[in-house]
């Protein structure tokens, strides 16, 4: 177990999360990706904390707060996703095309 190893684990999780955010069509799938990215950052914090400590409480507090924030974020996001689902019967990200630029010929009106 080394610092680099832990960081690499974080990086892998982050990349997997990023992949999910980009590849997933399901909005909840994207949210999952985001949670993975957040956790990757958390691993980083604790890894730094563990291997090169200067102020070990800080990183733990950060991770705790981030977990809290993630919960709040997930709550709001899921509420919005649910609302969206209720209106369109779909949580497909590709279906969100109402707000977009059209060319010169068409109007938003």
């Amino acid at each position: 177990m080394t610092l680099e190893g832990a960081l690499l684990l974080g990086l892998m999780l982050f990349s997997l999360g990023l992949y999910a955010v980009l590849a997933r069509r399901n909005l909840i799938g994207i949210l999952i990706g985001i949670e993975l990215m957040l956790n990757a950052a958390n691993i980083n914090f604790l890894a730094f904390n563990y291997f090169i400590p200067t102020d070990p409480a800080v990183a733990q507090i950060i991770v705790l707060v981030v977990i809290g924030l993630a919960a709040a974020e997930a709550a709001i996001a899921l509420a919005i996703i649910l609302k969206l689902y209720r209106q369109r019967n779909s949580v497909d990200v590709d279906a969100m095309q109402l707000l977009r630029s059209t060319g010169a010929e068409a109007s938003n009106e």
Partner: protein
Amino acid sequence: MSHPELFCPEFALLLGALLSFACAAIGTKARTAWLVSLAAAIITVGTSALALPYQGHPFATDIYAVDSFSQVLKLGISLALAFAIAISQRQDSTRASARTEVHFFFYLSALGMMMLVSATELLTLYIALELSAYGLYILAALHRRERLGSEAAAKYILFGAAASAISLYGISLIYGAAQTTYIPAIAASGGSPLLIAGVVLTLAGVLYKLAAFPVHSWAPDTYQGAPHEASTFLATASKVAAVGLLLRVLSMAGGNTEHLRTMLIVVAILSMSVGNLSALFQKDFKRLLGFSAVAHAGYLLLGLLSFSKLGAAAAIFYVLTYVPIVVCAFLVVAAVSHNGANPSIASLAGLYKRSPFLGLVLLVAMFGLAGIPPTPGLAGKWFLFSAVIDAGHLWLVLVAAVNATISLYYYLLVVKAAYLDPPGEYPDIKLSPTYSITAFVSVALVVFMGFYPAPIWSMASSAAAVLF
């Protein structure tokens, strides 16, 4: 908490939040809730103004700084809040069911922004960033046309969460590089490459707030899909907070700015260009303003990438003057909007006849955004460009100025619609007293700042002096 009075603008916001929460809880009428909020907002503005000269640390040392930098930006935020709430008088783009509650989110989001510009510690900074964002995510979802609102909010929150996750990852790298979360200490740690990498990734969330390339794409969609007052708030307060945040984040680089500057130059150019070019063909007025906001993020970055006092002051000046100008534009949006629908540019036709004053307000807004005197847009650009040339990037100014020319095209198209096209079947517009007063105040502010930019400049300059 050692000096509670230092925290007074935030207290005013908390009070406002509390009052609006109380209104929501006891289920008052939307109008009462609005009046209460407006009063609280005005109190906030007053408090912020009073708090301008305050300096100190209300919390544990180095977590939260109250200085002229934070206080000037807080004044900008509180002004934006007050304007947005004044505009929300005519809530017809907001969901009927949420009209009593919306102000609660405004206040908490504004609170987040105020904390954002004062925070000097990464955790505080991050949580403030999230607080300010969550309120906006919720506000964006409340458009009366629910499909629009939900889509806008979904895009906003998912993109925002992803960006903030990248930021958090960056913050973790910063922590790893500096082994501390106090920004002054980080800045003093010497700017190792890892730190720079961390700062770059942190920029994701910061630029997101500023709506700069490459994390700009939410802006037009969300501006379009959010209720008018939410868009107003988003376009003004968020920009002010973002400038403060960006200055703090960039200060962490601690003098090792070479790579950051290169990247910011690219980001600035692309923001301006993408924003301005994309705006050329927009038909929806709010969407156009969204792209314009992207372009203006580019201009603001010009000041920030200079890494100088002049540049920082110019950016702060620009964003402070930007607030009333954009308020003017959104005021027109809200006033013209019928049944909460988004006004298209075509629907501005004949505004000079339907409401001459509103026509003037629009003219001032467009000239202000385009940087035409007697609005402060010109002075703002001038100062920004001065900073950039001072930093040695003459050609960058050329690019920016060409961009300003391009932008003039679509601003003039708006003016054209309002002043040239016949009103057709569009009805006359009667402004409510609140709107008239708001419009008058914002236009007066704009013109005053345009003719006499000195006071704003000295504020901005003293704010920048804190950092450099």
